[in-house]
């Protein structure tokens, strides 16, 4: 069993997705219960489904000095970094600690493969990439983290985590280890995934894409809606942070994480959810929590038949009736490698604002859901100054699971 960890401060955070650019816009969409999902007009061939698309990326070119990294994924990263003053927060951490003491750990599932797809669609008559595509630094999984590190002038350890849909949740665990070992003073975590043919036609080939906006945990759900997102957070040791924090609730903490494997199947979850439960258990142990203390769980909740059934059953047997649970993919779609950070950001917004989002688009809950699952928005229990605790689940292909535990410490 893992040891309890010292909590890490979240000194800046942001996300950009179909539901909004930046925390304020996302918080407003959560409150108004307005979805970001729209009918698919993205794919190179027609595919009837709904997608969570960030508008305007096609026109959001990178600065000339970064053009070798140009791809839809890096454009979304660049857009996302400028929301909520995140670039300035990262620069402040760089100034405070030194560029080599700020690490970058980002998650992505497909990185900039959309650009490689384009290169294959536009091969020259000689069967080669066009000269422009040959010059680009985008045809590899690490292009996202390499780009962010260069764009922000950072020089510490730099790693891409690519474990499908748990990628940008696991980056928080990597960050905690770097901080604990003293190999970094601040870690920029996050993730970016963008819509591309690979994932839309890939999930379609597996029969997992719904022809309507996804309905997480609905009795009659019939698949997921894919989306795209960028999200970032800055983690620092709680004892050391201070100067670089600005405009963020100073009580937000990463208090635990759990990582596990299903050891079951490449693309379907363990039928009893044993791997998911291990990840949740380890997150609670590292956070020093009993399940009964958890106020809210932001579920993986993709709206696939298998995931939601297994996840709901785990939550029903593992948590008491006072815990609230929902999936926010009805707002954003499933953003795959960015789901971990996007839903971590939504969880942090929820902790700050005291609002618990109920599942969106869901009409009738699957009977497997316990009393934890809600369809309408609710408020966190207790007075405004009480400690609030939330978990965020992310489960990926290969049976790769991660659960994060966050708190807004008591303010009174």
């Amino acid at each position, binding site marked *: 069993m893992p040891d309890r960890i010292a909590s890490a401060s979240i000194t800046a955070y942001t996300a950009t997705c179909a539901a909004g650019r930046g925390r304020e816009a996302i918080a407003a969409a959560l409150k108004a219960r307005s979805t970001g999902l729209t009918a698919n007009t993205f794919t190179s061939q027609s595919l009837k489904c709904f997608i969570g698309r960030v508008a305007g990326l096609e026109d959001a070119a990178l600065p000339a000095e970064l053009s070798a990294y140009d791809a839809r994924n890096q454009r979304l990263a660049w857009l996302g970094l400028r929301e909520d003053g995140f670039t300035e927060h990262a620069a402040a951490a760089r100034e405070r600690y030194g560029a080599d003491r700020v690490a970058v750990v980002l998650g992505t599932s497909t990185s900039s493969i959309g650009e490689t797809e384009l290169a*294959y669609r536009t091969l020259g008559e000689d069967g080669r990439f066009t000269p422009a595509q040959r010059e680009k630094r985008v045809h*590899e999984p690490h292009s996202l983290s390499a780009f962010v590190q260069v764009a922000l002038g950072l020089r510490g350890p730099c790693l891409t985590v690519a474990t499908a849909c748990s990628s940008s949740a696991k980056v928080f665990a990597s960050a905690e280890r770097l901080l604990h070992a003293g190999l970094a003073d601040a870690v920029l975590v996050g993730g970016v995934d963008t819509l591309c043919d690979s994932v839309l036609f890939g999930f379609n080939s597996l029969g997992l894409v719904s022809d309507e906006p996804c309905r997480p945990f609905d009795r009659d759900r019939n698949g997921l809606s894919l989306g795209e997102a960028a999200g970032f957070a800055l983690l620092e040791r709680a004892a050391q942070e201070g100067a670089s924090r600005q405009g963020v609730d100073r009580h937000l903490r990463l208090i635990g994480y759990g990582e596990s494997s299903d050891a079951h199947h490449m693309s379907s979850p363990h039928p009893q959810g044993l791997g998911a439960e291990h990840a949740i258990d380890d997150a609670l142990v590292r956070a020093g929590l009993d399940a009964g203390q958890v106020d809210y769980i932001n579920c993986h909740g993709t709206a696939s038949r298998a995931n939601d059934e297994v996840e709901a059953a785990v939550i029903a047997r593992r948590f008491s009736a006072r815990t609230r649970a929902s999936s926010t993919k009805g707002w954003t779609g499933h953003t795959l490698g960015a789901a971990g950070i996007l839903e971590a950001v939504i969880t942090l917004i929820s902790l700050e604002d005291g609002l618990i989002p109920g599942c969106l688009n869901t009409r009738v809950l699957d009977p497997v859901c316990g009393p934890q699952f809600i369809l309408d928005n609710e408020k966190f229990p207790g007075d405004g100054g009480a400690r609030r605790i939330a978990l965020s689940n992310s489960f990926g292909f290969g049976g790769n699971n991660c659960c994060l535990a966050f708190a807004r410490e008591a303010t009174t």
Partner: protein
Amino acid sequence: MNARILEFTIEGIGLCAPGLPDWDSARAPLRGERALGAADMQRPSPALLSPNERRRAPDSVLLALAVAEQACAMAGRDPRTLPNVFASAYGDLAINDYLCAELARAPLDLSPTKFHNSVHNAPAGYWTIATGCMASSSAVSAGAATFGAGLLEAVLIANREAAQTLLVVFDTTTKGPLSEVVHARAAFAMAFVISPKASPGGYVVRLGLEVGVPELAPLPESLHDLQTTSPAAASLPLLAALARREPAAVDVAAGPEGTCRLHLEISF
């Protein structure tokens, strides 16, 4: 906290590269006692998979599982218990080439199996399924610095969890139009079982993080070409130092363009 130097022991080593089918037979060429001959690589054949599974498995999975099981056997560790990190600069390049070519041709005909095998953590997934391992499993990438960054991640996990941890570093051979932009002429894979303690008899390593361009350790001449064939071959200078079994210091790039390097001091 603020340890900054991490000590660990390499308990087991796996290797699979052209002319270097396993650690035992690689030691002589790594020490420079025997030149590496020109050798084609046989398709790796991990014992963990049934003949049927081996026939269907992608190259990346065969390569990664073969070195992983070698390292676990040498360490005498049960794979089920080991948290693991699978590091690869490019993942499975044959599947990438298939995916992009098929999407350009007929996207609705995409193979669902090829799609789920295209995730970067496919070898990690197959490993955990084949061994029944429910521990934490990661798949990472860091361009040309993938070996160093992957090693750092595995050592951090071993250190944090006080648990033996498996590191697998692999890259497959490039294929199709991608070959022009992806530098992986030959398959290469290696694995370590890392123990967070100094174990007698093992290879004890002290790791520090430094800034600057790594000072490359010398390699026997017959390995110079091999070193340029694959990002995973960045592990060769460390493997050569381990094969010599003498105290040594080796630098490994852990970031882009020499920003960040691991300084490794090896003793026995």
